[in-house]
């Protein structure tokens, strides 16, 4: 009844091609954004910001990047953590080695470096695909793990590869409090999510999707696989790289290579598969699911155990977490292989017909 596009006539091409063609979508997204910028900083306490919202925002950005590559261009990657690491360490080097380097610029340059590395490690995608490619991207993961651990130049000769940044500011705005960090990440994510949404519906996004659906056929109709695949790798690595820079600079502020291990790569792939391949919205759902679930399990399992009279040890809790996490992932994959984004769109379809489904 409420969610229906009746009476919304499109009288120009601009109307027809806008980002959210349905007015209800447009207004609710706008309201959500305004709420995220103004409402949440007023309402939410520091713990929630630091433990859930900031990681959620940053990992959403990374998941967006992975989704561009895996969901839109169909190239499975298990090396996303590597590009996060490249972004973080490159941004660190730009920031610390060049005095007076603006924070935003060094992060963007970190992203650009990650994009270049991404192009390099994307070259195998021109020859191999599918699972072979997935394993090939693991090469990037282990190589960067090693580089940042063993080559001291990248970590400014810090022992154990641990580096830290401090005194972050943009034009005099100190990013020190969780609220500032949150706003910074939110702003960053909003800009890049908008960009990604538009990219996927423009010529380049259509090329990616054509390659994903059938690369030989795409080649036959005149899409250059070299350009399409490598551009997907570049854009994806740029997103993941800036997310890595945010993760290091804003969230951790002092980090070592283990922060971007192969587990992180798996985590990011989980996000896009559970959230929904080939959906911008899905990246957010997936990130929310993966960030929040372990925290919820961690908080509620001991309480649940006490309820039934079991006293679960810390080790027991962490094992139970693993089991429940794994089971939920399998459950989701079986029940909805197309991810939470599909549930969302089914829900929207139902809502359009409600309350008279026939």
């Amino acid at each position, binding site marked *: 009844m409420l969610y229906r596009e009746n009476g919304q006539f499109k009288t120009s091409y601009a109307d027809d091609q806008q980002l959210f063609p349905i007015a209800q979508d447009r207004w609710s997204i706008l309201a959500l954004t305004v709420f995220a910028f103004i409402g949440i900083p007023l309402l939410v306490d520091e713990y929630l910001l630091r433990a859930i919202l900031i990681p959620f925002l940053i990992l959403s950005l990374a998941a967006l990047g992975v989704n561009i590559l895996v969901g839109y261009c169909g190239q499975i990657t298990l090396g996303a953590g590597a590009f996060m690491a490249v972004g973080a360490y490159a941004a660190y080097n730009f920031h610390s080695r060049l005095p007076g380097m603006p924070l935003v610029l060094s992060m963007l340059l970190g992203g650009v470096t990650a994009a270049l590395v991404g192009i390099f490690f994307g070259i195998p995608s021109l020859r191999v695909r599918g699972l*072979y490619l997935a*394993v*090939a991207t*693991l090469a990037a993961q282990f*190589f960067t793990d090693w580089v940042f651990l063993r080559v001291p130049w990248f970590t400014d000769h810090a022992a154990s590869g641990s580096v830290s940044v401090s005194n972050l500011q943009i034009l005099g705005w100190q990013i020190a409090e969780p609220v500032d960090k949150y706003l910074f990440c939110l702003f960053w994510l909003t800009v890049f999510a908008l960009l990604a949404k538009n990219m996927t519906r423009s010529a380049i996004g259509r090329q990616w999707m054509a390659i994903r659906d059938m690369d030989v056929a795409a080649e036959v109709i005149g899409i250059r696989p070299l350009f399409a695949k490598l551009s997907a790798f570049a854009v994806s690595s740029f997103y993941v790289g800036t997310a890595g820079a945010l993760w290091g600079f804003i969230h951790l502020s002092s980090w070592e290579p283990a922060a971007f291990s192969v587990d992180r790569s798996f985590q990011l792939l989980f996000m896009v598969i559970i959230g929904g391949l080939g959906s911008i919205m899905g990246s957010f759902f997936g990130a929310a699911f993966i960030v929040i679930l372990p925290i919820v399990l961690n908080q509620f399992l001991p309480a649940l155990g006490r309820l039934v009279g079991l006293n679960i040890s810390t080790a*027991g809790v962490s*094992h139970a977490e693993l089991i429940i996490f794994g089971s939920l*992932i399998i459950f989701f994959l*079986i029940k909805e292989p197309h991810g939470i984004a599909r549930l969302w769109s089914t829900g929207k379809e139902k809502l359009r017909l409600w309350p008279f489904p026939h």
Partner: protein
Amino acid sequence: MGFFLETLIGGLMAGMLYSLVALGFVLIFKASGVFNFAQGAMVLFAALAMARFSTWIPQWLGLESAALANVLAFLAAGAVMFLVAWLVERLVLRHLVNQEGATLLMATLGIAYILEGIGGTLFGSDIYKIDVGMPKEPVMILEHVFDGGLLINKEDFVAASIAALLVALLALFFQKTTTGRALRAVADDHQAAQSIGIPLHRIWFIVWCVAGVVALVAGVIWGSKLGVQFSLSTVALRGLPVVILGGLTSIPGAIIGGLIIGVGEKLSEVYLGPLIGGGIEIWFAYQLALVFLLLRPQGLFGEKIIDRV
């Protein structure tokens, strides 16, 4: 020369162990098209079961003989792996027929988490040791051929022989038995196999059982070498370059690939490592596999990929 040969032989033996892990991947991929990331977790789980049963069984039954206890523990751990195979087929794979490769891969990662969790809950998360009486002391061979001879780790040698034996047995099983033929038929074409009456679900169960046994053997060997601990599940990551190098669908590929990777790793660590810093083993294996992949995208022995629109 002697040193080079020593490194080479060490590499070949390490390679045999990688093949053992890789074999688990290939078996399952061939028969069900599932890229089983849980293979590492299965190795860990099997090794944990083996380690714990070999201490529990003597306590329960009051056995004295260590050898008998080990055999019983091996059988018990094998039974546990069969149970795992049954559950995986029943609860996971059966519901994911015809899904995309990536989805299946994620599902096996879920299985890996569950196995690690259950393994920790049932068997505890300390470091255990498996003692199946592997000889530990190194031996010298060919002393009259080279100065100083070649120093060979006997344990590695025994492990490599066991691995080779297992591979030979599997080859026989696949080539000569009816079940083996059915497995190969399923690997070729699921639908065609099903239409001539091969029960797909049972075949998958059998394949996961075989992979479980392979995991158990790998777990016992790696476990007695390194001790049973959670890092054991990362041997899967060691096995991956082997699989793509040899080709995802080829059992000989897994063996040859394992040998190439093993030798490449050891030689690179010894000769290249000092130049650019140590610890290059793991990524070197991947780069080696990548170079091969660029030349032959389907791996050394994989089936040729034919593109059709």
